[in-house]
Structures are given as C-alpha cells and as structure tokens.
C-alpha cells in the first residue's frame, strides 16, 4: 500500500441550472488570452448533446484513454510508445480547431467610425484566425438548452449506443447540464502520452499540470485525453489545461469555478488512495466493475492502518484530518451517490457527479402526480428507462444499477425531508428503503441541500514548510554565505523591514493576501512613536494618532 492524496471534486448535477458562471469566471481567470480563445477549461454541456469539442466521447473516432489488451494490461488507445514516436510527425487523432469552433471577434470599430449612411453600420464577425469575415456556425455551447438539437443530437455518442425509440422521444423526456473540468485522473492518459515528459501529476495533491517550459508541442496529450480537456494554445504552440486553480487550492481556497458556482453544487476535498493498486483496478476486464474497482482504490481515512501508512508516506496530520472531513469521501465512499464520468476510459477520473434526479421529478410532476412522493419517484426511476440508461452511459459504462441506487437515495432524501419540512412525522421507512437511517439522511441533506461553504470545501493548505518556498521571497543574494544571507522568509515576512528594497515579490495569491493585510508595515520600535520613513502610505499605523478617547498624547 502506498498512500497518496488526491484533491478531488464532486458536482451535484441536480442543482446545476446551466448558468455558465463557472465557465465565464474560469475563462476570465485562466484563458482570456491570445491563442486560448476557444479554450474552456470549464464548460457546461447540455445533455443530451454533442459536448465540447463535438462528439468528444466517441473514442472510436478520437482514440482517447486506455484500452485493455489481450494480456490484461492497459495500453493507450492511440498506440504505445513506439507508435507514438513513429507517428509524431502528424497526429491523426488530433481534433482541429473546427471541431471546437473558429474563434471570432466583431468589427466593433465600424459602429463608431463608419461614415453616415442610409443604413446603420453593423459589426460583422471576423475570424480571429484569418481576419476575414466569417459565418458563425458553432461555438462552445451552441446546443445549449437543446437549441438546434433536432439537427445535431442524433450525433450524441451516448444516444448512439441507445435504442432507436429513445432517440426519437428523448427531447420530450429530459435534459440536464453537465459542467466539466479536467478530471485530474489517477491514471492520466494525457500524462502517459506526453513524449516530452512535460506533463505530470503532483505528488502532494494529484493535480495534473503541464510544464510550459518542457512542452514541445507534440500534441499527443490533446488526443490522448478522452475528455478532451487538454487544449493546444495556437499562439504559444504549447498544451494548456485546467490547473484545478492550484494557486488557490494551495492557499486552502476553492477553485474559481467552485467559488463562483451559483447553484453551490461543487464540492472539493481530499481523497486518500492506494497508488499501488491504481493500474490493477483500471485494468479490470468487465467495464461495469470499473466503478467498484475505483471505489476500492480509495482508502478509508479513519482506518488506523491507512493512517499509519499515510504518515509513513509523508502525508501530514492536517491533511489526514482533511481527508477524514472530506465531503468527497462522504459522497463517493459513504453515501455512494457520486459516480465518475466515463469510467470505461480507464483513466480513473477524480471529478465525480451526483446524477440528476430532476428529470425524473419533472416527469412525475408534469404527469399530474406528486413529484415528491417516494413511491411515485421509485416507480418512475424503475420505469423511466431513458434517463436512467442515458445517465448510465455517462457515469457507469452502461450499468443502470448504480444509477438507480444513487437516484433512489436522492428521491428518499427528498421525500423524507419533505415530511419534516411540512411538520409531519418523519417516516423512517423511507430511509430504510435505501438502506439508511433517518439521521444519515438528514446528514446527507445537510451536505447536499444546505451545502454550507465550509462543508462543501475542505481544503488543507499546502504545508507551511514548503509554502515558504512557494512565496519566492528569497533574495538572490540570500544564498548561503552570500552577501544577503537573510535566508528564505516565510509568508508573514512580506512586511519584514529587512526585506531588501527592489527584490521582486512574486505575484502569488499568498503574497497578494499578505500585502492586502498590511496596514502596519513597521511596528514602531518605541511604543507610541511612529517612524514615518517606514510608513508605506497605506492604512493607519500604530502611534500615528493618539489612542481614541485619551486626552493627551502618550
């Protein structure tokens, strides 16, 4: 057993209203640059729908992820090491920018500088690739809310696996939103396909990153990722991907997509897993067993054996505690309501989803029945094959049992809590019908429905001893024996008066926070006196004014 920690996310799809706030804030923070116009580290797809890039789930076309070969070992679907090097001159699995969309801007200048004419000027769309006028035919969420899906939805790779009658009537049946970020997989195929070794998984928190200095632009990661969440920056010609906002995570803060989520549907927390068992679990033959295999790789953070091994493997006590308090552990391993996206890609994804019950509730309610009655809901889950099968195509490689299990728990929670909210007596039978106690249901309700900020995000800070290195405050002269010899400073020392003037402060979140809190750059050496030479002009320093209420200066 080798214990590693993984920062993971769960999204509660029932609460997603498809507002795209996560996508927009993510774009503002990470991808509002040249060459990244088409890049959405976070996107929200309407399902059924094509996804982004179009039909990314069709691995017969893109060859992403892993496959199990005859010997029972995992192989990259796009080919092994030799084939990768032999075909490095042209990656035929690579989506072109047209599979995403051609980025454009508008000729806004026309609106203000056009000469007076009979007809008002218009701002025509101009391609950012060619500079020419273009027709906008597709974009990041073109089939939002099933828009135009009469034309396109038959190309949804999940629907293609379902029977014909489903394809005809799904539109009247259900719809939901699927927000997607990088899965930060335990067995990442993008990292495995990178010829340069520029992609890596961080030992401490499992975040998958691209070293921009090592990337040589071979593009193998883009095609190897079955979720198509590695993008090619067509200006810098390097791969870029979702970073799980690691500068924030290291500070114990949630990612920007989570922080700004209007529906408060995202959960962040640690999972401990057994790194030695990842490959074995990912190579299980039956695709339907992949979900349980991945669950079995996750370790119980309360198990004394796990705790002692975690300590041996260098996981700090506060991180183990964070893993015990992790909402992710509760949702994945305790309640078992969260499910992975496309486990059949065998990458062991670590962004999981609670399947949406609302399509079922809508059908029951629209038919004039009580959409919160547990019997109606259970019957609907059993009878409404279309949403259940569709969800199974997304989350369980087609196995409907875990989907029904998860949906019934959500239905039971809804019905049980309704009784309580209406002041009726709580019905313990409802809880028992899904193998839970009433207390457990209420606990789950707190996590899923109340969803307090501190319950949703349990993020331990990066270690203090290594956080010091994060700050980059050290002066170049501070080497051992060098003239500075001040040594590295810790976070709080951003205000230290012995900082050599002119040394750059790195623009990390930590230094920003530290600076923002500086109202008092120089503690007066003598109480009650102020050295104005050290005052940075911000805030009110001790000793600048006499204490409030005192009649005379100290």
């Amino acid at each position, binding site marked *: 057993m080798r214990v590693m920690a993984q920062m993971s996310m769960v999204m509660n799809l029932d609460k997603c209203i498809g507002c795209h706030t996560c996508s927009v804030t993510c774009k503002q923070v990470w991808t509002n640059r040249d060459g990244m116009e088409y890049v959405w580290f976070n996107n929200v797809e309407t399902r059924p729908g094509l996804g982004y890039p179009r039909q990314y789930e069709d691995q017969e076309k893109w060859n992403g992820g892993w496959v199990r070969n005859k010997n029972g070992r995992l192989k990259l679907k796009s080919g092994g090491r030799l084939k990768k*090097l032999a075909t490095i001159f042209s990656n035929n699995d690579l989506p072109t920018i047209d599979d995403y969309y051609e980025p454009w801007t508008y000729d806004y200048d026309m609106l203000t500088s056009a000469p007076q004419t009979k007809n008002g000027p218009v701002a025509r769309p101009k391609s950012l690739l060619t500079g020419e006028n273009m027709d906008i035919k597709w974009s990041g969420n073109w089939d939002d809310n099933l828009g135009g899906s009469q034309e396109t939805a038959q190309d949804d790779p999940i629907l293609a696996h379902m029977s014909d009658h489903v394809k005809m009537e799904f539109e009247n049946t259900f719809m939901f939103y699927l927000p997607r970020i990088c899965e930060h997989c335990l067995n*990442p195929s993008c990292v495995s396909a990178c010829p340069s070794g520029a992609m890596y998984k*961080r030992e401490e928190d499992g975040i998958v990153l691209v070293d921009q200095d090592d990337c*040589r632009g*071979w593009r193998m990661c883009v095609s190897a990722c079955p979720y198509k969440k590695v993008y090619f920056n067509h200006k810098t010609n*390097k791969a870029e991907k979702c970073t799980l906002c690691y500068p924030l995570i290291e500070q114990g803060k949630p990612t920007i997509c989570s922080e700004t989520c209007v529906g408060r549907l995202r959960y962040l927390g640690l999972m401990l897993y057994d790194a030695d068992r990842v490959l074995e679990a990912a190579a299980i033959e039956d695709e339907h067993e992949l979900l349980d295999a991945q669950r079995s790789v996750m370790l119980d953070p309360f198990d004394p054996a796990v705790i002692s091994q975690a300590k041996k493997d260098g996981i700090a006590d506060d991180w183990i505690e964070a893993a015990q308090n992790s909402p992710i552990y509760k949702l994945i391993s305790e309640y078992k309501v969260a499910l992975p996206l496309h486990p059949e890609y065998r990458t062991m994804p670590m962004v999981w989803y609670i399947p949406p019950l609302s399509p079922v509730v809508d059908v029951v309610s629209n038919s004039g029945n009580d959409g919160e009655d547990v019997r109606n809901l259970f019957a609907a889950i059993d009878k409404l094959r279309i949403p259940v099968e569709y969800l199974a195509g997304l989350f369980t490689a087609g196995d409907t049992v875990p989907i029904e299990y998860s949906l019934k728990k959500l239905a039971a929670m809804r019905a049980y809590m309704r009784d309580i909210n209406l002041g009726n007596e709580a019905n313990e039978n409802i809880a028992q019908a899904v193998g839970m106690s009433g207390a457990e249901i209420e606990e789950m309700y707190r996590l899923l429905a109340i969803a307090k900020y501190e319950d949703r995000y349990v993020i331990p800070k990066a270690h203090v001893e290594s956080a010091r290195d994060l700050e980059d405050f*050290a002066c*170049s002269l501070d080497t051992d024996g060098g003239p500075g010899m001040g040594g590295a400073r810790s976070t709080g020392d951003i205000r230290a008066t012995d900082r050599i003037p002119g040394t750059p402060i*790195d623009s990390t979140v930590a230094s920003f926070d530290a600076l923002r809190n500086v109202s008092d750059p120089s503690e007066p050496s003598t109480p009650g006196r102020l050295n104005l030479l050290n005052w940075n002009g911000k805030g009110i320093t001790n000793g600048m004014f006499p204490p409030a209420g005192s009649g005379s200066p100290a």
Partner: protein
Amino acid sequence: MSDLTVLDVLLWVAFPYIAAASFIVGHILRYRYDKFGWTSRSSQTYETKWLRWGSPMFHYGILGVFVGHVVGLLIPHQWLEFFGITEHLYHLGATWAGVIVGAITVAGLAILMARRGAVRRVLRVTTAMDVIMYAFLAGSLVFGMIAVVQFQVIGQFQAPATGYNYRETVSPWIRSLILFQPDATFMVGVPLAFKLHVLTSTGLFLIWPFTRLVHVLSVPVMYLFRPYVVYRSRDDHRGARAIRRGWQKSPVIDSTRPKQKQKLSSDR
C-alpha cells in the same frame, strides 16, 4: 595552397565555423533563455488534411537524407571499402537511395510549403523567420537534388560512369573542419551545384537555433524508457522559471506576467 583566394577561405573555412558556432552557442542560449519558445510550432490544429501527408513525407525523407549524409560525408571511403563496399557499389546505392529519399523529402516540403501559402490560417501565423528558414531549407534541398541528378544520375551515362566523386573532395573537407585542420583546397574544384548545396546548408545551420527547427534537438527518445505517469513534487517545481533579480532585464515573455509584481516592489 597558392590558388586559394580570400573568398575561398571565407566561404569554406570562416563561414562553416561561424555557422557551427552559431548553431552551438545559439542553441545553448535559446535553451537557457527561451525554453518557453522551444516548440515545433505545429499548425495542425488549423489544417490537418494536407499536413497528414506532407509532414510525414518530409520528416521521414529528411531522416533518410540525414543518414545518407552521415555515411557519405563522415565515414571515409576507405572504411567502407574495408567492409567490401566498393566505390561502384556505394555510388549505385547512394545515388538511387538518395534520389528516392530526396524526392520524397522534396515532395513533402512542397506540400507543406504549398499548404502554408494556400491555407490562410496557416499563412497568418507564418513569421519572417519561417520564410527565411524555408528559403534556406528549400534551397539546400533543391541544390542537393540538382547536384545528384546532374552529376550522379545523368553523369552516369558519361565517362567516368561513377559520376562526381564527392567522397574525394567534399567529404574530406568536412572532416578537415571537424578535426580543426581546415583545408579549403578540397572545395576549390567542386562543381557549382555542390557548392551551392553546401553554402545553403551551412546557412541553414547558422540560422537553425533561431527558427522553429530547434524542435529537432528535442527528439523525445526518453519517452521509450520512462514510466507512463510522471509524478513531480510541488517543492521541486514550484514555478517554471527561476526568479530573476530585480535589476535584470526581463525577456519578452515576462511581459505576460502580471505587472503587479513591479508595482508592489516600488511600493515598498
């Protein structure tokens, strides 16, 4: 040595050494200061139908060309004869393998260059340095092919039937450069097509580190030997670049970093 002109020494001694120095020092400097710019600058996301033919043809062709040049230029013909490869045998092999491989390379490059001109998206990202690089690359290839066809293929039907034996002139000249005992007299009587081929190739080496060709030095052979999943500690790689001193002039790429940094330090 009496018949060497100043121009001969400049072209066949000074120029190759300048190019070699530029190639080596240029790569070291580029690697130290512009790792971020070290990429093949692929345009495959813009256009893939032409590239999927042109690029493999060109690259496999040029790899064959490279091997041929190593055998023909760096290995003395006496060594090959020791293994029983006579002048005639070598000539036949080199000529026909060279023509085939060279034709594939030229065809591949022609596809890639036509694509670059015809596809507007690709044309828009073509830099001045790309154009210069393409000129030298194409020039070198074309002159090389002319030399082969003119002297080795057509020349075969004239006496002597062995074509032009560059292994008596160009090859020892190159080895004399590598051994730091440059002897320009080897190059004096060499036919014009060969001379132009040598000059354009030397020019290509001169500009090499400053073009997209740097990706040639990044052939990812280590991929064959490393484990699939790479783990790195945050502590080892907290940032891509070492933090520079405050007074050091920042390279262009640093302009993409937040300006806040400078502002904060002046606030102190």
